[in-house]
């Protein structure tokens, strides 16, 4: 899609998918694709250049997966969708929240009601991952305000049998055997949504990220703080100190540096907007020990917006990109040092993905 320098952006909004490609004049915007549908997440399989998947949801017409074979120029709906067996939960499928591609072609999907599904035939059919969906701790899971979703699915690129996934609310789980069995991975994380301060599961986690070059390093953004793990999720340490708020959705890492992490702090679970109306991206270069606002070029007053959990992404060339609930998309090409507007007045932005290898 791109003729300029840097990645194209897949911008999922409440009313369709837009593609922003850099060109000599700045950014060229294309869309809406899949018009009228909420594009909650997009996925670019690493082994299939030009192939993209989108999780699309519509209040009337339901939730569906679309695929593009040409880098996003055209999209086709797929007949199958991941869903629970009818009668298992209050509904078989409320929405598809997350799509992830493993090396070798396997696809994973996370849905509401919270569940993990796998496809080995390019999304033509989906099978439930029962080791997680029927986990003995499932009775500690409950819907969060935004829904009851499984999201943030990560696969160790060096060992695809190692998996992580997060549930809102339910916490983080990990598997070492390709998804056959799962272990809660929340040790050291407070759960302010529950009477027990440090339970095994049931945490409200907004976003989990795995560092691709060091998969044992994970970061998680919860609704009351930010945490880091250096041992694949077995233990967590809180890294909220230095941030102006303990709430937030989005968190992303620099894929070249396991110590560099970006976050958009929000005030609290009551307001759910950036702190003091200042749109600020915070960056840590030391894995969360210290934080610094990196916000030159962003509105510094009366920006009462939010940045949702899938709406922040990075590339491997100092690119940082995010979209807001107000329909604005910003890009930085210098590690969040300076920011420029990519697009404004789009519908509410739900997801942003930088296409690292675009066509």
């Amino acid at each position, binding site marked *: 899609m791109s003729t300029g320098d840097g990645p194209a952006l897949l911008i999922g909004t409440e009313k369709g998918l837009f593609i922003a490609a850099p060109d000599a004049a700045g950014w060229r915007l294309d869309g809406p694709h899949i018009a*009228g549908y909420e594009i909650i997440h997009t996925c670019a399989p690493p082994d299939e250049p030009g192939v993209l998947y989108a999780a699309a949801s*519509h*209040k*009337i*017409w*339901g939730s*569906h997966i679309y695929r593009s074979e040409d880098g996003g120029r055209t999209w086709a*709906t*797929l*007949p199958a*969708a991941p*869903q629970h067996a*009818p*009668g298992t939960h209050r*509904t*078989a*499928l409320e929405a598809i929240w997350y799509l992830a591609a493993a090396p070798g072609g396997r696809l994973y999907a996370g849905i509401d009601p919270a569940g993990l599904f796998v496809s080995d035939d390019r999304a033509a059919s989906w099978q439930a991952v029962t080791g997680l969906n029927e986990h003995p701790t499932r009775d500690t899971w409950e819907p969060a305000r935004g829904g009851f979703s499984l999201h943030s699915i990560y696969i160790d690129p060096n060992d695809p049998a190692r998996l992580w996934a997060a549930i809102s609310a339910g916490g983080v789980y990990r598997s070492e055997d390709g998804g056959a069995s799962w272990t809660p991975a929340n040790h050291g994380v407070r759960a302010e949504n529950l009477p027990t301060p440090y339970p095994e599961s049931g945490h409200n986690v907004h976003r989990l990220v795995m560092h691709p070059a060091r998969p044992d390093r994970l970061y998680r953004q919860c609704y009351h703080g930010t945490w880091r793990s250096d041992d694949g999720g077995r233990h967590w340490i809180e890294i909220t100190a230095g941030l102006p708020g303990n709430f937030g959705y989005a968190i992303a890492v620099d894929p070249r540096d396991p110590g560099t992490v970006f976050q958009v702090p929000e005030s609290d679970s009551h307001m759910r907007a950036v702190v003091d109306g200042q749109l600020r991206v915070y960056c840590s270069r030391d894995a969360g020990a210290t934080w610094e606002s990196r916000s030159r070029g962003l509105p510094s007053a009366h920006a009462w917006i939010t940045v949702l959990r899938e709406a922040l992404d990075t590339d491997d060339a100092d690119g940082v990109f995010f979209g807001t609930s107000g329909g604005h998309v910003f890009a930085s090409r210098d590690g969040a040092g300076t920011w420029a507007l990519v697009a404004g007045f789009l519908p509410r932005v739900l997801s942003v993905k930088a296409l690292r290898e675009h066509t």
Partner: protein
Amino acid sequence: MNQVTVQIPAPLRSFADGATELGVPAATVGEALAQVGEQRPALLARILTPEGELRPYVNVFVGERNVRRLDGLRTPLAQGDVMAIIPAVAGG
């Protein structure tokens, strides 16, 4: 089997090769939808939930009567009936 006409709303016509209506043989509303969806699974998936029920904001009328006030998907159809799929006016 009765021959009936199923009218397709504009947002779904791309899943029916652009057709505004389709003629199918069917004895009930559910059978008519199954006939329509047999070669068009993406169309059917937008009308019915994964459980096989009408989506909450999708209405089906036989003539001028909403099948929710009749016998739902089991509502019988007569020869020449016209069945309309109409999204509900949901929200503001």
